[in-house]
């Protein structure tokens, strides 16, 4: 049995060191042994893939933020379902009814954003915001 803190976490340290050594070793080996060709095709982001068009720093549609925010909200609500799912047998009917109320509240929020057009991707920007 390991007793001290150092002994307990020594394997972790060892693994971290090994991982770093391996990565550094491979990079060095390829740098020393590899052949270097420099031309226009080689410098492209996707060497044998799609030819990139335009600048990566263009502005995104505000829709992405909206969908992102809504996703965070509905995603995080699921957190309450996990503890409930673990013990739902012990909670019996009362727990089920309470969870049902919770889900109905979330669904009414979903109904609201749906009817407001927040999920309608094809509408022009901002159209969903004002009635």
């Amino acid at each position, binding site marked *: 049995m390991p007793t001290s803190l150092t002994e307990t976490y020594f394997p972790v340290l060892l693994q971290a060191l090994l991982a770093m050594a391996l990565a550094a070793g491979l990079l060095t080996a390829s740098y020393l042994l590899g052949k270097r060709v420099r031309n226009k095709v080689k410098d492209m982001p996707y060497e044998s893939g799609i030819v990139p068009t335009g600048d990566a720093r263009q502005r995104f549609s505000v829709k992405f933020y909206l969908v992102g925010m809504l996703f965070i909200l509905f995603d995080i609500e699921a957190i309450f379902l996990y503890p409930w799912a673990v013990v739902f047998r*012990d909670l*019996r009917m*009362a727990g089920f009814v*309470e969870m049902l109320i919770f889900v109905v509240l979330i669904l009414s929020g979903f109904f*609201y954003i749906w009817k*407001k057009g927040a999920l309608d991707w094809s509408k022009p920007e901002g159209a969903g915001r004002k*009635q």
Partner: protein
Amino acid sequence: MPVNFGATATDLIRFLPEIILTVMGTALMVLDPVLHKRASHAFGHLSIFALLAGIGGAVYAQSNPGTAFGGMLVVDGFATYFRVLVMVVGILTILPSYGFLARQQAETSEYHALLLFSIAGQCMMAAANDLIIVFIGLEISSISSYVLAGYLRDDKRSNEAALKYFLLGSFATAFFLYGVAITYGTVGTVNLTAIRAALSGADAPPVVFITLAAALMFVGLGFKVSAAPFQVWAPDVYQGAPTPVAAFLSAGPKAAAFAVFLRIFLTAFGPIGADWLPLVWMAALLSMTVGNFAALMQTNVKRMLAYSSIAHAGYVLVALTAQSDTGTAAAMFYLAAYAFMNIGAFAVVSHVSGRGERYQNIDDLAGLGRKQPMMAAMLTIFLLSLIGVPLTGGFFGKFYIFKAALESHLVWLAVLGLLNSAVAAYYYLRILVMVYMHEPGEAAGQTEPLTPGFRLALILPALGTLFLGIFPTWVLDCAGKSATLVK
């Protein structure tokens, strides 16, 4: 071991106001896309109906007081007093909102739904007996208020108010929450009654950590009640937010935050009262001084009322410093009086400021006495009450607070508070001089006629202010009985 986790009927009855408000708020949101523009006034009517039902629910719950949901919630006189107060504030906010929203062409159900959610959170704060419930109530109330502050989406000032309120509000919440975590770590529970028992027991946890936790919570709640030195957000938020919302923010969330303040510091941290006392009296003194002296220099009415609201938070903190039942009762009375007079004053400003809220300066009130005698008379009542002139609620509020301070041998604090009130009289009187002694300006000529709803929005707070000033004993008795129940 199977445990029955289901809520009992008693639990639900003690949670009735929050249930009513949440159901109605959700219903408004769902109804909005269905009804569209057809019934924009109906949203307001429904909200007022829900608030009246909520008040009924709170009073009904009081007929059988006790704890609910395993001690997380407590219905006692104190909780009922504040629940009723915040719901009355809600009604008084909606009444002037009809006209205001119509003028800004921004009538939606979201406004009312958010207001109801915010009030539900405040009711929960008033009845909370558990730090996590306090936190959740605080956040329900705050998050809805952030949106309300930025309700006029295309108005730069409203945006800015929302941003500042949001950033500083969340910052404060994090402090409060860290205090909760440290309390949980040292005491092993977040139940207020249990914390009190643990702190007064023989093997009390180290006082250093508990004092640190109390200090962190003090910072968090200090922000929420806009007490100095955590007041920086208040002037910008009150100035930028739509006027009825500013009125609401200065009365509702503040009253609920003070309810939590009193409950946490007098119930849970009561046994270590001597340790947190210096924090509170310093904040009280600083709030009164900073608020009043900064208010002297303002030209914008809303901004001036914001600084005056900081000063009034200072007076209530004096009542907390007294650490006695008299002090608690005085704070409860003062918050009710303050809610009436401040909402009334903001209602007048919201009417005078006109479309797009252009006229917000003190000069814009010039000649109001001649153009709108009824509104000017109401404004006079509110301002006299804010000064603390006898026969108004403000007078007895201050009177009881300073009386409580004297009973707790805080003579110097009472004296400094009184000196502050004298300073405050100057800037309130300056408005009255403008209203009655000056020629009508551009703004007074442009004000629209009063609608019946708006008349009610002025008369009800005025009646409340006068009632508290002429028959203070009734409310004070209520408060006094509830104050002894806090522990």
